[in-house]
């Protein structure tokens, strides 16, 4: 199958059905991992970018993308791994954020642009004080337990009202 038969829009919509292996309610497109879809002759070139450099899900994601396109009859698929511009949670779609919340994971609370900032980015107290809403009861009365959670992309929070601990998809 080639460019004549399948539009890139069609490929994007197929990729919108490919779930993130760690968080199955969000697709790789909603997560912002898929950066480009192009045809090079009869070969479909999909550009993806890793969330974190050590993310163990990347190999699974690459395989899932390839399998999905094969399943739709696109037999020649090439994946390009792109480092720059580096992935940011700003690329997560609104639909993706809503899906995360429904799944019990608080979505990123702010636009990031550049997490590292300049020198102030690592000064004590430079980390922005965020209002993270509890995905269970909606309370803003929440507290950070740990900057690092069950996967590199998440932090641990607890709700001080409903007392539930929860994951927060941290700004990156």
């Amino acid at each position, binding site marked *: 199958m080639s460019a004549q038969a399948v539009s890139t829009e069609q490929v994007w919509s197929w990729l919108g059905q490919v779930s993130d292996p760690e968080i199955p309610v969000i697709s790789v497109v909603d997560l912002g991992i898929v950066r480009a879809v192009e045809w090079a002759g009869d070969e479909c070139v999909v550009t993806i970018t*890793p969330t*974190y*450099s*050590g*993310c*163990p899900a990347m190999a699974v994601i690459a395989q899932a993308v390839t399998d999905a396109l094969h399943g739709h009859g696109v037999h020649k698929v090439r994946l390009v791994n792109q*480092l*720059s*511009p*580096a992935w940011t949670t700003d690329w997560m779609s609104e639909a993706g954020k809503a899906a995360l919340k429904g799944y019990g994971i608080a979505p990123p609370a702010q636009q990031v642009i550049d*997490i*590292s*900032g300049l*020198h102030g*980015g*690592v*000064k*004590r107290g*430079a*980390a922005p004080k965020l209002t993270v809403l509890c995905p269970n009861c909606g309370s803003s009365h929440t507290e950070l*337990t*740990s*900057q*690092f*959670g*069950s996967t*590199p992309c998440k932090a*641990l929070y607890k709700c001080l009202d409903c007392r539930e601990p929860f994951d927060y998809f941290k700004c*990156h």
Partner: protein
Amino acid sequence: MNDKFEYLLRQGDNALILSQQISQLCGKGPALEEDMALTNVALDLLGQTRMWLAYAGELEGRGRGEDQLAYLRDAHDMRCCLLVEQPNGNYAETIMRQFYFDSWHYFLMQGLLKSSDARIAQIAEKSIKEVTYHLRRSGDLVVRMGDGTAHSHGLTQAAANDLWMYSGEMFIYDGVDDAMVEQGVAPASEPLRAAFLEHVGEIFAEATLVMPAPSAWMQRGGKQGRHSEHLGFILAEMQFLQRAYPGAQW
């Protein structure tokens, strides 16, 4: 070209060995949250290792990929600094080693963002977000432990003193580093060291710790392959599988 290969090995080996060291604490962290943080940092560093060593292998052009470079080089071919191969020790030592490393690592990545080598700039761009989280965490912990109980303060000050002599090697440039500066690939040593000292000084002040003298004598040699006795043990465990079962895969 050989200089750049060496420089990439240094970056990759620093991340690789520190990652290996921290991952030995997986399941042994002093608290669940710390255990998860340790393994997350180890994972980030391993990911960064892959980017550095993959590039090094491509540049070398002898068919060695990231895996061969990580698992099939002996101690005298490793180019990590002496700091990262120091033992995990007690938790104050684990965190202080991390804090010294992160403080240098963060400012180096900032410098490498402007590297004349586009690939290196991209790796730095990817890494610095992760390193920012690492440094915020290790700095927070240094403050908590330094400005904690008399016991934690004593252990943290001792760790700061004992590890200090390993905190200077990264700023002592040799021919490889100088060549990289000359080509615009890497940042110069002096501004990097000034930023490092300023940051460590600020954190130590808040942590009620005494910063050891910047003019103190510093250990060196790791970057050139002259390592402490610790590295052999680290490699023995890390490389065992590939040595015993060459080419083994998951």
